[in-house]
């Protein structure tokens, strides 16, 4: 097995790698996926125990630099106001994502044409629509049809419960005449494909013990393996190798025992996210690609987009049960999603209503901020916060800027000695204005909903860099993009990229549904062209 040739080799078993493997499996080609992490065991997730909050803060810590699991690689993000977050395992960062699943809008693919900034994508919403729908069906997406903020679609499962807190915010938005709708959520609300429905455990973003959250390990990989895809865990890829015809020949990787191996392949697909993918390409240097593989444009690693995040918290006098329900999924408002230049910025943001804090989190936050005192007033103060607070998250569209980039750190390396990524990122004036606007509108929404106290967190939130986009952008011009309009490298004709790296712009929503739709679209494009894939 060590050096035989597989048809397709996928690097990374997260959201996009899982989706592309699912689609290609029907070809009966020999497909192997290498994943640097292992399988997670939902029976060991924190929410199985009463001490789940303290366990989650350590074991499921969002920053790889703090979590330091064996599968993690360190990331130098000192030169960024937003920390890079991820998870490394089968399922990738979907292990910890909140599963908030709003789609990109049609306008997100025509940013240059509509708003005169950034670039248009070489594909559009209509092209991706069938793949959004396919992905919704594959993994199980809950939602409510009829949302006037996006083109009509039918989520296959009933929406996530809004609870009293969702109703409260909905009334507030109605008072202002603003859009709102129950969020599309990658959480199954009815049994789906042999999986049990959501039980409202709450801490989705520490791993779902029930398996109702549609993380890629649960929703895709069992199906992929049954279809014949071989998944090798604890295999960390060091570089993609090439021949003198500029064709990828395979990858060099370290196996679970730390042995260096080479796997030959006819096609290599990279699915390592917007930081891991440029890291791998930049680490893959050779005589023909001295500046990194597929990087003749010089754009690998550039145009990093992170979705600057803001948070407004509203505290209410009446009990809302806001501590119950899927943490990150309830309702959203896209009132300020589309461009209105009178606001002082272009593009827009999504308002994501999320649940209130759990017991330990509420108490620690209150003691830290002085809102929960020591002594006799402790219990009343705790009761006035717990179950009575609602969080509003602002997901701001980040425009591509070449100076925001991923490079290789000259010193930092992972446990196999592979150079780590280094992030250089500054917040743009457009993003700053958008955040300020969002914080003011968020406070307005909380006031309309009846909050008696409103708190705006300093923005951007540092621990919010989940959405890693744009570092190997898609386009038709090899001088101005890394991959073509169907994900194939301009420079290496049997190398494909299918993760968020290929995004031309970032939209203003959580990107996983669009990432998976793009991955399915690229896989479908490959299948359509199998006879002349490398022409």
């Amino acid at each position, binding site marked *: 097995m060590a050096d035989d040739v597989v048809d397709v080799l996928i690097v990374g078993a997260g959201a996009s790698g899982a989706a592309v493997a699912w689609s290609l499996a029907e070809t009966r080609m020999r497909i192997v996926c290498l994943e640097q992490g292992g399988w997670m065991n939902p029976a060991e*997730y924190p*929410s*199985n*125990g*009463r*001490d*789940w*909050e*303290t366990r989650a803060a350590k074991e499921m810590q969002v920053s790889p630099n703090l979590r330091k699991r064996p599968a993690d690689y360190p990331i130098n993000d000192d030169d960024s106001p937003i920390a890079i977050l991820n998870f490394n395992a089968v399922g990738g960062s979907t292990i910890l994502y909140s599963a908030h699943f709003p789609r990109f*809008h*049609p306008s997100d693919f025509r940013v240059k*044409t509509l708003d005169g900034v950034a670039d248009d994508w070489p594909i*559009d919403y209509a092209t991706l629509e069938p793949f959004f729908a396919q992905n919704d069906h594959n993994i199980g997406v809950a939602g*409510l049809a*009829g949302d*006037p*903020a*996006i*083109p009509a679609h039918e989520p296959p499962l009933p*929406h996530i*419960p*809004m*609870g*009293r807190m969702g*109703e409260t915010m*909905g*009334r507030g*938005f*109605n008072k202002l*005449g603003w*859009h*709102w*709708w*129950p969020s599309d959520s990658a959480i199954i609300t009815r049994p789906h494909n042999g999986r049990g429905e*959501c*039980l*409202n*455990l*709450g*801490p989705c973003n520490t791993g779902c*013990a*029930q398996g109702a959250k549609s993380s890629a390990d649960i929703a895709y990989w069992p199906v992929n393996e049954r279809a014949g895809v071989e998944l090798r865990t604890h295999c960390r890829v060091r570089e993609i190798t090439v021949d003198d015809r500029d064709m990828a020949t395979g990858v060099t990787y370290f196996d679970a025992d730390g042995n260096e191996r080479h796997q030959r392949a006819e096609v290599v697909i990279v699915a390592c996210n917007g930081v891991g993918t440029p890291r791998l390409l930049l680490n893959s240097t050779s005589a023909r690609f001295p500046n990194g593989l597929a990087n003749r444009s010089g754009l690998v690693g550039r145009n990093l987009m992170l979705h600057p995040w803001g948070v407004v918290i509203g505290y209410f006098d009446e009990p809302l*049960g806001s501590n*119950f*329900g899927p943490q990150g999924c309830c309702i959203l408002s*896209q009132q300020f*999603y*589309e461009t209105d230049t009178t606001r002082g910025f272009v593009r827009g943001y999504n308002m994501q209503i999320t649940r209130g804090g759990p*017991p*330990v989190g*509420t*108490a*620690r936050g209150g*003691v*830290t901020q002085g809102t929960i005192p*020591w*002594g006799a007033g402790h*219990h009343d103060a705790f*009761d006035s916060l*717990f179950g009575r607070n609602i969080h509003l998250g602002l997901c701001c569209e980040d425009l591509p800027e070449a100076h925001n980039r991923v490079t290789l750190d000259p010193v930092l390396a992972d446990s196999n000695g592979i150079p780590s990524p280094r992030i250089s990122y500054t917040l743009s004036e457009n993003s700053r204005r958008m955040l300020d606007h969002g914080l003011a509108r968020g406070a307005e929404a909380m006031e309309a909903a009846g909050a008696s106290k409103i708190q705006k967190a300093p923005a951007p939130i540092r621990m919010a860099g989940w959405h890693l986009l744009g570092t190997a952008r898609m386009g038709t011009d090899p001088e101005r993009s890394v991959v073509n309009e169907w994900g194939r490298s301009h420079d290496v004709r049997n190398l494909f990229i299918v993760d968020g790296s290929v995004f031309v712009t970032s939209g203003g929503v959580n990107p996983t549904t669009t990432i998976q739709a793009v991955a399915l679209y690229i896989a479908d494009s490959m299948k359509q062209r199998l006879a002349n894939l490398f022409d």
Partner: protein
Amino acid sequence: MTHNQIIGTDNPLNDDQRRNLAIVLDLIVPASADGQRPSAADVDVLGYVREAESHTLDGLRAELDQLDAEAIGSQGESFASLDPATRQALVDAVREREPHFLRTLAMQTVTCYYRNDRVLEAIGVGARPPFPEGYEVPSGDLSLLEPVRRRGQVYREA
């Protein structure tokens, strides 16, 4: 070797420190007036610290000793010997002067407190982990969406 010596060897705090700890924990989170919620002195905070944050024990010992030193210095007797009002005033004064004083213990206290069975029952989440029972959450009144539907499409065609 006596039984007491065995226990003593395994004990991270001496008797004075333990007494001071119990007093301080009760100052941080006293029992609720209705008796439903215990004092933090009764939820084994020390056990939590030993299990999860043992690296902070040296600092804890020093702070508990400091309480005695402050009490003897200002009142001429140990912290535990003071009346409750004087203890409270002494702790407040040290915290005012040294904002970090007992801050780590306060965070450890609430972390431990809000995973205690009696406390979880009292605040309505039940003395159990989230899984496997989960929780009931109302679906919500979808008629609230009527104004949103009436306003119609809010996205741009492209």
